[in-house]
C-alpha cells in the first residue's frame, strides 16, 4: 500500500516577518517543515512500524527551498519524495487539483494533509483534495487505525469527539494530539541522502487559471494599550483580571 504525505515548508515559529509593499517579506527567515505535516509523516511511519506494508511518499508543492522540508521528511522515514516546483502562489483548490493528479498517478490509498497551515492558517487543502479525488475525508484527526481496507478515526468536535470509519482510499487531515512526532536521527539523516527526490514541473500538471488571486498581505500588529492599573495590590490584581477577561478577552 502507498501513502502520500503532503509537506509544506513554513517560517520557523520564532521567525520575525515583516510586510512590505503588500507582500510578506520572507528574506532572512528560517524555514521548517510545518509541524502539522510532521504528524502525518509520523502517523504513516507508525502504521508501517505497526506492520503495514506501506510505502511513504512525501510530496511538496512550492519553491525550490521546499526541498529542505522534503529532506526532513525523508530523514524522518519517508521512502521517497516528489517536489513540484513553483514560485507561484496557488489557492488551495488549485493546489488540490495538482496534488490529486500525483496522488492518482501514484495509486496511493491514503493521503495525510496537515489540518491547518502554520503560516497562512488555511485549513482548506485537506477537504479540497478529498473533494477533487472524490474520496472520504477525516478532518482534525486525533487517532487512526487501519483494518480490512478501511480506516477508523477519531475526530475532535467542538467540545467533543466522534469516531468514524472510512473506506480506503481516504484523505486524513491531522492535528495536534494525533501523535508525538519523532525527530530525525543522525544515521537516518545520512541515509536520506540516498533516497529518491524527484523534481516535477508545475506546468506538467496544467493547473489552469488560479481561482483566486492574492491581492495583498499584511501582518497583524497590536499596539500597546498603555493602561496602568493603580491602587493597592489586591484590588489592582482584581482589576487586571477583569480587564484581561472582559475587555481583552484573553482569559
Amino acid at each position, binding site marked *: 500500500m502507498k501513502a502520500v504525505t503532503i509537506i509544506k515548508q513554513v517560517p520557523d515559529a520564532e521567525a520575525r516577518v515583516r510586510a512590505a509593499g503588500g507582500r510578506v517579506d520572507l528574506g*532572512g527567515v528560517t524555514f521548517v517543515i510545518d509541524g502539522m505535516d510532521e504528524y502525518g509523516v509520523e502517523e504513516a511511519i507508525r502504521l508501517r512500524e505497526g506492520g503495514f506494508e506501506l510505502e511513504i511518499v512525501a510530496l511538496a508543492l512550492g519553491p525550490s527551498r521546499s526541498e*529542505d522540508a522534503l529532506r*526532513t521528511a525523508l*530523514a524522518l522515514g519517508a521512502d521517497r519524495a516528489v517536489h513540484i516546483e513553483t514560485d507561484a502562489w496557488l489557492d488551495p483548490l488549485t493546489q488540490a487539483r495538482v496534488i490529486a493528479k500525483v496522488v492518482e498517478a501514484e495509486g496511493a490509498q491514503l493521503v495525510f494533509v496537515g489540518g491547518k497551515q502554520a503560516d497562512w492558517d488555511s485549513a482548506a487543502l485537506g477537504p479540497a483534495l478529498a473533494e477533487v479525488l472524490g474520496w472520504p475525508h477525516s478532518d482534525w484527526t486525533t487517532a487512526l487505525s487501519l483494518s480490512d481496507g478501511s480506516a477508523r478515526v477519531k475526530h475532535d468536535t467542538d467540545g467533543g469527539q466522534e469516531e468514524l470509519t472510512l473506506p480506503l482510499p481516504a484523505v486524513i487531515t491531522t492535528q495536534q494530539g494525533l501523535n508525538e512526532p519523532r*525527530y530525525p*536521527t*543522525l544515521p537516518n*539523516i545520512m541515509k536520506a*541522502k540516498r533516497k529518491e527526490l524527484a523534481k516535477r514541473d508545475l506546468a506538467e500538471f496544467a493547473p489552469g487559471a488560479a481561482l483566486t488571486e492574492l491581492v495583498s498581505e499584511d501582518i497583524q500588529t497590536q499596539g500597546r494599550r498603555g493602561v496602568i492599573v493603580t491602587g493597592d495590590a489586591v484590588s489592582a490584581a482584581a482589576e487586571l483580571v477583569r480587564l484581561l477577561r472582559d475587555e481583552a478577552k484573553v482569559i
Partner: protein
Amino acid sequence: MSTPDRNPQSGAAGARVAAPTGGAFLTERQDANTVLIPEAFDDDLKMFAQTARTFVQREIVPDFAKLEGLDYALSRAKMATAGGLGLLAVEVPEVYGGLGAGKAAASVVTEAVAASGSFNVTFNAHVGIGTLPLVYFGTEEQRARYLPRLATGEWVAAYCLTEPGSGSDSLAAKARADLDGDEWVLNGTKMWISNAGFADLFTVFAQVDGDKFSCFLVEKGAPGLSLGAEEHKMGIKGSSTRQVILENVRVPKGNLLGEIGKGHRIAFGILNIGRFKLAVGASGGAKQLIGLAQAYAKERRQFKVPIATFGLIQEKIGRMAADTYALESAVYRLAGSMDAATDGKHDPAAQLAALNDYAVEYSFIKVFGSEILDYVVDEALQIYGGYGFSADYPIELAYRNSRINRIFEGTNEINRELTVDQLLKRAMRGELDLLGPAQAAMLGRPVETVTAPAAQADAELALANLKLGTLMVAGMGAMAYMQGLEREQELLARVADMVGLCYMAESALLRSERLQGARGGEVALLLARLYAFAAVDRARDLGTEALRRIPRGKEALPRFQAYLAERGVDLVELRRQAAEAVYAADGYPLG
C-alpha cells in the same frame, strides 16, 4: 581499518575546502573560497545541528534542574537517548556502528549540546576523550568490543590521565602497570575524572617499568577498582567528578591501548582534539548567552528606558558579538581544514597524524574559546545586574560552569606555552617556513596594499601588518633567548596571543569576504572589522611589552609600531552598530 571517504564540505564556487599546513596562516593567506563557513554547511550539517538542538530542547531543558543536581541514572538515560539519535556516534567509524563523519559534523553537534549545562561535560568527556582513544589507537579487536557500545550510549567512558600529584605535568604520572603472566596489574590514583561515577570503561594512563608511559582499558567492576567521593565543585555540579583508585586491578594483556611507552601519543593526540572541541562548545555557549543578555537588556528598564539603549551596555554586547563571531569563524575554518586534511585517509594513525598537524591552532583556539566564553558570561551577568548574581536567573549557573574551561584540556598557561613551542618545533622540523619570513619582518617595512574586497581592505591591511609584527616579535624573541626561551614564559604567552589574534582576525575576515553580497554579509563585515581592529590594538600592547623586555627590542619598537600603526577606526561606533545588529536579530546575528 575503515573510515570511509568523507565528502568534505565544498567551499564557494565548487572549490574544495583546503587543508593548509598548520601554522601557515602566519605567512600565507588562505583563499576565502576554500574556507568552511557555517553559511555554506551542507544539508547533513544543518540537519545534524537541528537534531542536536531538538535533543537539548526536548530532553535536557525540561530536566535541567535535576541534571544539575547530579543524577547518575538520569544522566545515563539522557546519554542513552543521545545514543539512540546517533549523537554519540558521529566520529565512530561506520563498521563499529558509527557515522564515520568528520569534525565539522561533530562540531555542529558539540555547539548545540553546549547549551545543556553540566550535561555538556558528561557528553563531551564521553564522545571526546572517552571514545576517541579507541577510535584512533584501538586494535581491531578492541574497537569491535567497545566502540559499538560507546556509540549507542549503552556504555559510558571516562579518561583517566590526571593524578593528585600530576596535572599539567601529566607524563609524570605515578600510576604503574606491571605485567604478571597474561595480565597487567595496575596500581595508582587518578584525580578529577569526569563521568567516573557512572562510567563503564576507564582509559587509564600508567607507567610500565617506571617510565614507559602507557595506556590501558579497564572495565567497571574490575576487582580493585574503586572511586573516591564526588568532588564538591564550583560549577558543572551535574557532571560526575571523582577519583579513580586502582589497587592491584588486573586486566588482560590485550587491554593495553597502543604501544608500551607510547602513551604520550594517545594523551596528546586526544587532548589536541579535546582542545578544539572545547573551543567549539565555547562558541555555542557564547551564542546562547548573547541571546539571553540582549533579551534582558531590552526588557529591563532603568531611568525610564531599556538598559539596552545605554552605550556601556551596547559596548558589551557589541564586543560579545564580535568575539563570538571570530571564534565561530575560526572554529569552523579549523574544522574544515581538519576534515580536508584527513580526507581519503583510511588508517586511523594516518588520520591522527594529519590532525596533529594543527596542534598550534588547537592550543590557541582553546585559550581564545575559553576566555571569550568567560568574557561573555561575565558581562552577561553584569547586564543582568543584581539578578545576574541570583541563582533564580540562568546566568549565575552559566558563570560558574564556564570557569572550568580555562583549567581542563590543558590550562590556558600550558596552552599558551604550547602554541609557541609547537610553532617553533614545526619550523625546526622544516614543516613550516617561519625563519625566512621572521627575518624579513625584522628588517622589513609595512605592507601598503593588499588585494581584498574594498569594504574590508582597511582591516585586511591591518591584518597583513599584524602578521608581520607578530613574526617580528616571535623572531626577535627566539633569537635573543635561543634555548632559554622556555624560561621567558611571559614573552611566549604574548607571542601566543598575537599568533592567535592573527588566526582569529583572519578567520573573521575570510568569512565576511565570502559573505559579501549574501545574506548576513553586512553584519559579518561589521563584526569582522570590529574584531580585526580590536585585535590590532591588543596585539600592539602585547608586542610592545614583549619588545621592552627583549634585549635590543626597544630599538625595534618603532618598526613594530609602524606595523601595528594606529588606523583611526572608531571602535566605539562599531560596537554600537554591532549591538544594534544583535538587537535586530534578537540574538547572535549570524550562524
